[in-house]
């Protein structure tokens, strides 16, 4: 970790673009769902599932796997698309998102889709579950285990008091095998986070709870890799990576607009978005794309 090759970065960028296209397609077909957060976290999803996580898509319940908990379950279109491309299920199944009988529930359900570690959606409880998993793993594998629990929360989600209960617990038990990623995209349903309920200085908050804190650009694979590498080497503390992201990343019309938090693109909007993603509009540099 912390020494990702240029080639790998290029490969992940390409993969992330494919995943973003799948997200737009599945959300458009579903006719509802959360676009901005899904696109905003795509690079981190891609990094985790195509580089960092110890996992096997063919054996989702492999005992020694790392665990990824998506607490902000509403951005599951991003997770589903990533899992499909990683080989958990056919990419074509993404078209069933949010439909009756689908394994791809509107918010993820662990019993429907193998590889989903916990059912989530009601905000604020994912980090507590990740704490429980990290504690349980420590009983079985010892304190310095290499089996990590990654948890993603939205920044708006941090309004939920339960997160802070979990943050204290992780600190009390010095859960060095827990890595929290905060999607710091500054939006939530009702508007900008700092208007709805100011989070102020998140770094300071986490530091005061005795967490190891790093802040990164959520769209820069070298920075993501560096931060995860550091987080894994921290001793005696849980780690948080505050990932500054652009909600809607990759599609100019969707970016940084709170109204894109909870809706899906129309067919026309999707057409433009897919065109933009194909050409990348110069935002993500990659020579290998047409």
């Amino acid at each position, binding site marked *: 970790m912390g020494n990702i090759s240029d080639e790998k970065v290029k490969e992940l960028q390409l993969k992330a673009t494919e995943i973003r296209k799948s997200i737009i397609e599945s959300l458009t077909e579903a006719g509802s769902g959360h676009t901005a957060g899904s696109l905003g976290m795509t690079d981190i999803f891609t990094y985790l599932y195509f580089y960092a996580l110890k996992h096997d898509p063919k054996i989702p319940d492999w005992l020694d796997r790392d665990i990824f908990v998506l607490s902000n379950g509403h951005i599951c279109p991003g997770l589903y698309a990533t899992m499909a491309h990683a080989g958990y299920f056919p990419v074509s199944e993404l078209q069933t998102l949010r439909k009756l009988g689908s394994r791809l529930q509107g918010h993820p359900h662990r019993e429907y889709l193998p590889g989903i570690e916990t059912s989530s959606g009601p905000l604020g409880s994912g980090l507590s579950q990740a704490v*429980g*998993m990290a*504690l349980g793993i420590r009983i079985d594998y010892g304190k310095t285990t290499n089996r990590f629990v990654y948890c993603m929360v939205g920044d708006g989600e941090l309004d939920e008091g339960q997160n802070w209960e*979990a943050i204290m617990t992780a600190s009390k038990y010095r859960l060095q095998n827990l890595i929290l990623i905060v999607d710091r995209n500054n939006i939530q349903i009702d508007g900008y986070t700092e208007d709805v309920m100011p989070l102020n200085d998140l770094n300071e908050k986490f530091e005061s709870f005795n967490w190891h804190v790093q802040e990164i650009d959520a769209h820069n694979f070298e920075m993501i890799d560096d931060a995860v590498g550091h987080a894994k080497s921290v001793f005696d503390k849980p780690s948080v990576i505050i990932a500054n992201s652009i909600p809607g990343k990759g599609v100019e019309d969707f970016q940084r607009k709170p109204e894109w938090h909870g809706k899906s693109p129309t067919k026309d909007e999707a057409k433009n978005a897919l065109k933009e993603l194909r050409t990348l509009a110069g935002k993500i540099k990659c020579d290998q794309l047409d």
Partner: protein
Amino acid sequence: MINKKIKLNPDLFEENIDKKPTRDGFGDGVVEVGKEDERIVVLTADLSESTRANKFAEEFPNRFFNVGIAEQNLASVASGLAAVGKIPFATSYAMFSPGRNWEQIRTTICYNDQPVKIVGSHSGLTTGPDGGTHQALEDIAITRVLPRMIVICPCDYEEAKKATIACAKTSDPTYLRLSREKTPQITTKDTPFEIGKAIKVFESKEESVDVGIISTGILLHKVLKIANDLEQNGTSVEVLNIHTIKPIDESAIIELAKKSGAIVTVEEHQIVGGLGSAVAEVLAKNLPTPIEFVGVSDQYGQSGNAEELFSQYKIDESAILESVEKVISRKTN
């Protein structure tokens, strides 16, 4: 008469009957099962002594977690432990768990199908002087409505211990409802216990009886004394101990309704949504039978000792007798 086959405490009607709290049954039971099964872990939210989780903590410090006064976190951390193969018992007061953290129990435990055991002590009016804020009278209602949840309300120390051990051996989410007060030892080590199977504790050799009484939890002792008095005074009666409110033993209830044609339910809980409602659901569908409900009638409790509160909220002996009389008068034949 008392059902001899189930080996209840021979001192059942003695003045100096042994008394122990049901929470102690949990505390001893979880240590016992914890010795057999390393997957058992115990959590508390700053109530390790009150819930008797402290006994497990002393025995297995590495499998015990105190998350502080944070019941929402308590439920979800327990869910996470279960997700990696543990069998967690999450302990607090019934008012706060499953009260305050109901949605976390619903989503992260029941919807998620994790084998977490919610242990709610200090339920009901017997919490006494602490007052209405701490007297959980709604917990049966809010847990039995949850798909997959098993709901158990033991009648005494021994039954609580057996219930603890039995639920540790299932993969079902479970709510174990416990009390603070020392209450009479009704059952013994030799009394049978099986989750979901009601126990006929008081029976009659006659083909039909005047009334059937169905109870759950610590009020069972009061009910048995009343049944004994009724029988001596010429009213024939049978009594069912429904320790498992969900899944409820439908056939035992229907059988009693057939035999009695009149049912009284007795519980230390709101009438709305509790044991009585569960019994009514069974009978309305299968064998419509007059029922009188003894329980707290859409009110909150207040400070006082247990007996004072039972009388104030009409779940005492005279209220039960009144309901027996009333339901018998409602019988159609």
